[in-house]
């Protein structure tokens, strides 16, 4: 939260994006953040509450899309484009000159397959500062958070549906044979569902969004999670069960990182991964605990949201950040 908010008049709040999201579009995380801020600044409450009343007036009734409407329009677009022969998508009749292109494509696909057969291993890595969506051979989908990696055996994937994860990812799995995610800290087994896995250093966290998820931590009994249930495990401690709202998109996928009582060293590590930067800070600082959130838009604003409540100062020098 910015320092200058305490000087804000009701109307000024209507210019703040997180305020709009909280009180007009009802984002629960941001709403909580603002309510916490209001509790901490009782003298600002009259202006804030008036701003809240004002923004509530701006709610409008929106048109709701019909099922299949988007697909129908897209189909029409595709049809118009392919009949004028411009979009190079599979058309019903391929003109003769396209045979050469098709042959070239086939050759490429074949080469790629041979290469994969030889290497036998698929490795997908998202660099720091990027998120990446990957579709697996069975059409299950993985969204990798920044600085994460998955590995799987191309040849056996179809029969085993088994992959290794290092980092954090959100999975949407097609129904079928058991699907297994192995990490250094534990194993997750599902049948057709969506869930989020975090496994870095000594922290392991699994959230079940739909379906049923089986989590196994070495040396312990398996646990089954149903939608809205999560499990967190820190190496050397007992696993903790918790709950969350499965209707909401996983935080990092919707561009927000929520942090609930974690050491600053973990928070800075997350910022390093999200923005591809390097942060240096004292060990005293790293041990302090932080609760709050930041949005994944501007590095400056993320640092501000973390540093200001902790009364820390930061300096940005290219990719190097120093916390004082």
């Amino acid at each position, binding site marked *: 939260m910015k320092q200058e908010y305490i000087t804000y008049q009701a*109307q000024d709040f209507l210019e703040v994006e997180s305020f709009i999201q909280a009180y007009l579009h009802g984002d629960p995380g941001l709403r909580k953040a603002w309510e916490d801020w209001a509790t901490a600044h009782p003298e600002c409450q009259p202006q804030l509450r008036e701003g809240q009343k*004002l923004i509530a007036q701006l709610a409008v009734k*929106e*048109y709701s899309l019909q099922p299949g409407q988007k697909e129908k329009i897209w189909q*029409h677009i595709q049809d*118009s484009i392919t009949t004028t022969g*411009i979009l190079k998508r599979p058309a019903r009749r391929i003109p003769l000159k396209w045979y050469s292109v098709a042959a070239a494509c086939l050759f490429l696909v074949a080469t790629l397959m041979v290469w994969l057969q030889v290497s036998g291993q698929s490795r997908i890595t998202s660099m720091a500062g990027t998120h990446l969506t990957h579709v697996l051979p069975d059409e299950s989908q993985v969204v990798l958070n920044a600085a994460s990696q998955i590995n799987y055996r191309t040849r056996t994937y179809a029969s085993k549906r088994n992959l290794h994860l290092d980092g954090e990812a959100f999975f949407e799995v097609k129904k079928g044979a058991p699907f297994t995610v192995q990490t250094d800290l534990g194993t997750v087994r599902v049948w057709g569902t969506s869930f989020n896995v975090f496994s870095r250093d000594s922290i392991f966290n699994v959230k079940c969004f739909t379906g049923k998820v089986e989590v196994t931590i070495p040396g312990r009994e398996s646990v089954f999670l149903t939608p809205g249930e999560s499990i967190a495990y820190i190496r050397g401690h007992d696993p903790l069960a918790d709950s969350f709202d499965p209707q909401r998109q996983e935080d990092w996928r919707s561009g927000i990182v929520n942090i609930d009582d974690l050491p600053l060293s973990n928070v800075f590590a997350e910022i390093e991964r999200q923005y591809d930067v390097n942060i240096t800070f004292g060990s005293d600082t790293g041990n302090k605990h932080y609760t709050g959130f930041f949005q994944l838009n501007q590095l400056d604003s993320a640092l501000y949201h973390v540093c200001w409540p902790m009364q820390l100062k930061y300096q940005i020098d290219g990719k190097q950040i120093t916390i004082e």
Partner: protein
Amino acid sequence: MITPHPLWLRFKAGDPDAFEQMYEENIDALLRYGHHFTVQTEVIEDVIQELFVDLWNRKSNLGDTDSPRKYLCASLRHRLYRVLKQNSKVSGEEQIPFDLTWAQEDQNLEEQRHSQVEKAMNQLSQREKEAIYLRYHQGLTYEEIGEIMGVQYQSLRNQVHRAIQKLRNILTVIIMIFLTSLSTSILSGGYNGKYIILSSL
């Protein structure tokens, strides 16, 4: 100097996946935006379809944009205007209605206050409503809205500020009337709080 959006560049280079992604990311917003200009769903669907077909056909001649959403909204607006102008007596851009139905989320507003607020909101001009909609419901910046609506950034910002100030004044007056009548009721004695609140308005 603008920095062209990466998705836009991929689309312009002829990548069909980028084109599809651009459709997926914007179609909801475009359909909703369109419905504030007309209730004829088929008209909006036709215009959107035409818009995307033209985009693909002319991609090599298109300029750059830093925001596909802004580009698409501006283009949809322009095309809808053209169609709606043909179908009605409207002559200037300014006259094209922008219909916003206010959804009162605040259930504590009693009926009378509700209708006063509604009246206040409906005093806003069509373009003020459109600007407020794009700012608060499409999440666009004033710069982007200015480009879409073809107005200067500063005048647009002032326009929205004025509209909200107007609303704020009306709300303050309503609250004051409410408080005055509340204290009169208390002075005249008698009823419990809840009843007074209901009866005083």
